[in-house]
């Protein structure tokens, strides 16, 4: 029974691994192919089935005039917009979450839980509902087709995630830690940044990771709110899909677009696997 269970378990894990890894292998393999290798039937193993070439990768930093796809600028635009939007969202969201976790707000029938829900309810709405108001507002402030305009939109979209995650995290941080810091001579601001914040790093990392994933993978708003001046990576990749799709460049671009998230996942993994609060309150 134990052997059968173990076998089934490993079989399931293996199948799942293949399911997850196969697209990456397919993309890596395709990124080293050329037109002939892609169109002349299924080929898998480099140097056996096809002769690998770096043409797909070289095209990434060539301009369209040189026959390239030019994703370098969209890549760095995406990095800048995602990083700035996530950082500001985490900063504001963490402060808002701390207030919602530690202080009681009353306005008529509205309480802290309602305010938290108000934040997250903005993520419940379909993006298309928000698109028109964003379009009109950014247009009024001449921020359409600008990086600043996109950052502002991303803050609106990402901050609810940060608030939602951080409220839950702060609720799990014992209030007695804040109280002890006050008794030990910290004013409320010092108690927050000297004691509560250092112990909230796992929560901030998780919230930051979610913000970055949502920001980095957004296609809809970057497509609607930009035209010619500014282009983000998801839009640039989709733009590659022309009458003859360059699958080799498309695969290379897709791998480039996934790479930052993989790097982030490896960096934050250690924060996710263990919290820093053990020992605060035993």
């Amino acid at each position, binding site marked *: 029974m134990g052997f059968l269970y173990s076998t089934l378990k490993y079989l399931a894990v293996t199948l799942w691994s293949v399911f997850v890894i196969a697209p990456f292998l397919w993309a890596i393999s395709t990124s080293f192919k050329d037109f002939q290798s892609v169109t002349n039937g299924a080929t898998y193993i480099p140097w056996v089935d096809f002769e690998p070439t770096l043409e797909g990768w070289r095209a990434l930093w060539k301009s369209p005039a040189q026959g390239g796809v030019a994703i370098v600028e969209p890549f760095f635009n995406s990095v800048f917009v995602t990083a700035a939007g996530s950082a500001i969202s985490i900063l504001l969201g963490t402060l808002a979450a701390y207030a919602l976790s530690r202080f009681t707000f009353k306005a008529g029938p509205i309480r802290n839980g309602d305010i938290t829900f108000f934040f997250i309810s903005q993520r419940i709405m379909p993006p298309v509902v928000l698109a028109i108001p964003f379009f009109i507002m950014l247009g009024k402030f001449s921020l359409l087709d600008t990086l600043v305009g996109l950052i502002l939109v991303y803050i609106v979209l990402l901050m609810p995630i940060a608030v939602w995650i951080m409220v839950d995290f702060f609720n799990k941080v014992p209030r007695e*830690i804040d109280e002890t810091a006050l008794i*030990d001579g910290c004013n409320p601001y010092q108690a927050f940044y000297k004691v509560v914040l250092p112990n909230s790093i796992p929560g901030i990392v998780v919230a930051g990771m979610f913000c970055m994933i949502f920001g980095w993978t957004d296609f809809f708003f970057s497509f609607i709110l930009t035209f010619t001046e500014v282009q983000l990576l998801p839009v640039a990749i989709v733009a590659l899909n022309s009458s003859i799709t360059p699958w080799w460049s498309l695969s290379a671009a897709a791998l480039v677009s996934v790479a930052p998230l993989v790097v982030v996942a490896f960096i934050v993994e250690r924060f996710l696997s263990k919290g820093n609060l053990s020992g605060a309150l035993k």
Partner: protein
Amino acid sequence: MSLIASNLCLKPDTEYHLNDVCFEMSKGEIYTIIGRTLAGKTTLLKTIAGLIAPESGSLILDGTDFGRIPVWKREVAMVYQQFINYPHLSVYENVAFPLKQRRMPKVEIRNRVMRALSQVGLDGFENRKIQALSGGQQQRVALARSLVKEANIVLLDEPLVNLDYKLREQLREEFRNIFSAKASENSILIYSSTDPVEAMQLGGQILVMDEGRILQQASAKEVYENPNSTKVSQITNDPAMNLFEGAVADGKVILSSEIHFDLPQHCQALPQGSYNFGLRAAAISLSDGGFPFTVELSEISGSETFLHLKHEHVQVVGLLDSVQNFNIGETVSAQFDTAHLYAFATDGRLKSSPYGGPK
């Protein structure tokens, strides 16, 4: 230095958390606040610390209005029942934290931290992370952090309650030594506990709390000998003092049709009438010629046996100095040591005690 509380009240919902609390505390004394869970002990400590603002009343420290001073400027230290430390800091940094807040010179900080760690028996643990310590060691770190400040008021909120029995016994002894030395210096030490044994062992002054109200403030000896009400007698004894409804008539104490005995010498002045009589568990023993009781439960605790007995409506708990086995439903003969009988009025006030009565 003295801390005077006058008419402190806090009623955030339908019940009082602090109800007209008044006390006066002096430097160099240990004060133990004893009360059941939700009696208001932690609320009172947090009020003194400045973490909770009372709705009315005042706290005066050495003639200055303590209530107007924000918590971070109050020069108080507090140890919680949970082992609260800063998990991102080492043991040394934890203890040094309040001193760094005061911007003390590094050499002075080092000297004080090392002295405090030595006081609580944590020499050599300076560089350990908090997570690498046992529960008892974590609580020692919290205690060291409270000692290192040399605060005017040290608040200890049931600091031993979350430790296992052996460690609690060990730390209780160490705490008493540390506190005695500390209290003789410049601090008012306030210790809260639900454990009467702990309160009595620490000595000093005892404040008995219930439902946000201070029922009695006196020395540990006085509270033990002359609890001023049935509630105090219940809170300050473990097991709680046995209480029986009864009457004094014709020179006798009558508890039931079969349980009656001569009025003891110290109760002779009691007029006839109804009373609540009290007898500690240790004043009940098993021997021939006593009252017949049925065994309801027998609990062995260490080297002692708690025996729950019943006769008609009279229920008592006796404490036997040895480990004995009894069958539930067995009939035993129980003797009452009436020389240690307490008499309370029907409203709960102490009327007569073997130690001289209410003072």
